[in-house]
């Protein structure tokens, strides 16, 4: 009997137009739990390093996490994985709202797409009935509009739709897959467009088996209440009108400078009024009491949802105010563009123009006003017109395609991917490690359990630690000893990075929202879910009994498998370099020391490759054999092996 998961996945060959329902191997669930873990296993087995993102052999995988569709609050994430055209590496993104639970109730844990359709199609899943349908009439339609039109033509208002807009259709690297209030980014939208898959619509009405139904229900009801009463959960900052944290700390323009003192009461009042005038309501995701998203209506545009810090990213990149941000989001959400990387590409282009690298010949009729320029560039990029064709490939590739010294202006990418526009003073070793070694490209997908700064007052720090149920013991000591403006010991930096990423690896396997778990401990230290209580949810829902230690090791296995995928695609130590100007004051020697320590701790070689010993200990001997066969590891690379540390 399978619990919490359906035990089936859909295999869709878009070239041939064939659809298969395939039973899945329960031993995989025990090894990888589901979500991105299972997807990584499929990518490892079936997508070799010779396969490029836009090859038909690349797979695009949608996976509803293990606990999705169960009563566990906040477990509503769908993970999307593929090979990214931008980085050439494993691409990971995760989106919430309603799609995943619907997919589970339709009877599937996962959809694997391969090949390319001859022309635009969409997949319609209605329980056992699954078909590819023509989508040529949806060409160029906005992502949200596409969802509406598909529901109408199917006559099924309850269908959940994930769709790409024009950006995805034109394989813009920043393209997203949009669904309700959520979206998936970091390469997956471009691959979906390359496969000529406009959308997936799903309606499911079947039951999901639960291992201990009554128990999981009771646990979930209690958790639901606890989440709603916990002030440290959800997207806390989204609800605040005081934007000081973002506008003062993040860099403006092409990740260039911080503007101290921009924030004041007058501006706060004005921005608040603007937000209120366009906000229809706050909304949440399936089975979660929080309301992290704003439904926004700008006159003349389709309603869209705003989430996370995309409220400000365009405004800050263009040196504009918040009304501009709401305006341009109305367009970018319809086109399906990522709110983190897109503004950086636009600001990069503006800088190139100002530097005379891009000229009026490249940008005929380029407007004066920065905001107008952003709108202008947007149209070029989503259509891949003129220089927009290069810009559509993101900052790193655009810089090299444009040449003429444009590379100099690419200063905020790592592994060819736009990083969060943070320019800080003093090197921070845990963050150095998270940036350098993260496989998920965006720091928000890596950080989150350990606080970003210590509480200044020692007494309060002690109080904090007393309430800190989420933390393994070793962190309590480091936190207690952590005085403001001091570095934690390097050993602590290694562990902090390890803990932070481990929690994300767990969430992304079980389909849990990071705002209730892996991302949430850093402010307040009271995430509703943590390493010590997640096992009981997994046991009652899925019937898989794990100790916290064993759960930690599943995350470790998934982490190593994904690292192996990237290593096989060429990732090495030399690539693990945060942007040079991320910190003003660097310490190259200590940085390399902590990186070496981290590799050793992880059981990797000094080039960042998991050793044979590590892979074997994690039950991934076949992965080790493959790396040896390819000459990436030698027979002697058996050590170091990671140490079992207590969870």
């Amino acid at each position, binding site marked *: 009997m399978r619990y919490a998961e359906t035990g089936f996945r859909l295999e869709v060959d878009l070239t041939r137009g064939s659809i298969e329902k395939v039973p899945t191997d329960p031993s995989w669930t025990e090894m990888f739990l589901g979500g991105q873990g299972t997807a990584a296993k499929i990518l490892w087995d079936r997508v070799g390093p010779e396969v490029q993102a836009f090859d038909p052999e690349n797979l695009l995988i949608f996976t509803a996490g293990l606990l999705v569709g169960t009563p566990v609050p906040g477990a509503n994430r769908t993970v999307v994985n593929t090979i990214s055209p931008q980085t050439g590496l494993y691409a990971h993104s995760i989106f919430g709202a309603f799609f995943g639970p619907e997919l589970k109730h339709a009877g599937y844990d996962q959809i694997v797409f391969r090949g390319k359709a001859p022309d635009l199609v969409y997949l319609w899943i209605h329980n056992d009935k699954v078909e590819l349908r023509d989508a040529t009439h949806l060409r160029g339609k906005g992502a*949200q509009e596409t969802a509406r039109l598909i529901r109408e033509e199917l006559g099924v208002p*309850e269908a959940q739709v994930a769709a790409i807009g024009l950006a995805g259709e034109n394989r813009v690297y920043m393209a997203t897959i949009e669904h309700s209030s959520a979206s998936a980014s970091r390469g997956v939208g471009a691959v979906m467009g390359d496969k000529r898959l406009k959308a997936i619509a799903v309606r499911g*009405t079947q039951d999901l088996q639960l291992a201990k*139904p009554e128990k999981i229900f009771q646990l979930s009801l209690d958790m639901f209440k606890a989440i709603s009463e916990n002030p440290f959960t959800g997207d806390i900052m989204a609800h605040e009108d005081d934007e000081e944290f973002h506008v003062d700390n993040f860099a403006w323009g092409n990740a260039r400078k911080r503007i101290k003192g921009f924030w004041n009461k007058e501006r706060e009042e004005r921005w608040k009024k603007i937000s209120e005038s366009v906000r229809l309501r706050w909304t949440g995701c399936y089975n979660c009491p929080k*309301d992290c998203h704003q*439904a926004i209506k700008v006159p003349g545009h389709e309603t869209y949802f705003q989430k996370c810090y995309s409220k400000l990213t365009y405004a800050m990149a263009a040196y504009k105010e918040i009304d501009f941000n709401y305006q341009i989001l109305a367009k970018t959400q319809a086109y399906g563009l990522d709110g983190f990387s897109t503004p950086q590409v636009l600001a990069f282009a503006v800088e190139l123009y100002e530097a005379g690298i891009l000229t009026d010949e490249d940008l005929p009729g380029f407007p004066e006003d920065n905001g107008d320029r952003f709108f202008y560039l947007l149209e070029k990029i989503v259509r891949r017109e003129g220089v927009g064709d290069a810009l559509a490939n993101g900052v790193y590739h655009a810089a090299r395609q444009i040449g003429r010294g444009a590379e100099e202006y690419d200063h905020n990418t790592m592994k060819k991917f736009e990083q969060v526009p943070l320019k800080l003073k003093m090197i921070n070793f845990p963050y150095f490690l998270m940036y350098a070694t993260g496989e998920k490209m965006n720091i928000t997908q890596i950080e989150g359990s350990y606080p970003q700064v210590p509480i200044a007052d020692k007494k309060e720090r002690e109080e904090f630690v007393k309430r800190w149920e989420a933390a393994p013991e070793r962190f309590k000591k480091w936190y207690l000893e952590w005085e403001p403006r001091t570095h934690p010991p390097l050993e602590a930096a290694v562990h902090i990075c390890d803990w932070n990423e481990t929690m994300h690896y767990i969430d992304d396997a079980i389909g849990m929202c990071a705002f209730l778990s892996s991302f949430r401990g850093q402010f307040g230290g009271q995430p509703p879910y943590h390493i010590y209580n997640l096992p009981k949810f997994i046991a009652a829902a899925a019937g898989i009994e794990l100790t916290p230690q064993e759960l930690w090791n599943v995350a470790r296995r998934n982490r190593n498998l994904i690292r192996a995928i990237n290593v096989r695609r060429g990732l090495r130590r030399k690539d693990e370099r945060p942007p040079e100007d991320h910190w003003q004051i660097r310490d190259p020697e200590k940085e390399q020391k902590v990186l070496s320590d981290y590799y050793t701790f992880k059981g990797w070689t000094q080039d960042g490759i998991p050793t044979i010993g590590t892979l074997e200990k994690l039950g991934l001997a076949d992965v080790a054999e493959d790396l040896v066969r390819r000459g990436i590891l030698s027979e002697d690379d058996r050590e170091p092996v990671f140490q079992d540390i207590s969870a």
Partner: protein
Amino acid sequence: MTEKRIIKTIKVDPDKCIGCRACELACSAFHAKPRYSSANPARSRIRVVFDELNDIYFPIRSVAYTPAECAGRHAYVLQGKEYPECAFCGNICPSRDYFYEPDSKLPLKCDMCESTPELEEPVCVAVCRVDALTYEVREEEVAAGEEGPDELEIGLEALADEYGLDKVLDAVARIAGKE
């Protein structure tokens, strides 16, 4: 003749709804047999009518079974928002997919979470943390009369509508014979 009756009301404030569908989940689980054995919004007796692009999040409970749809459908425009057809109607009606058991197609009618011991409030209300659903109980003097049909009666009626009363009676007789 009058008698005292308990009037139970679930007040709906759709402006407060965040669209979390926890009410659907809780209702379906509470009514699963055995209780909590499954959680599946498709089996819920409360449904949130969604139209995200028009900012419509409208929870409705199923009230009564009807074998045929009304002579004309209802559509409302309130404060400039056009609500989907029949959005305000709680009837279990063939014009739409709501409130039918997905397998048997039997109607699902809200029973205000009747159970022994009695709940403090219905489960859909209990999980609605933003007070889009609130519960009120009061006593009223009403004309003495018959209670409405119960779940069994509604189910039989629906079966009779689908298969004809004779077939249903035959089937009941056959089952009775077996036992």
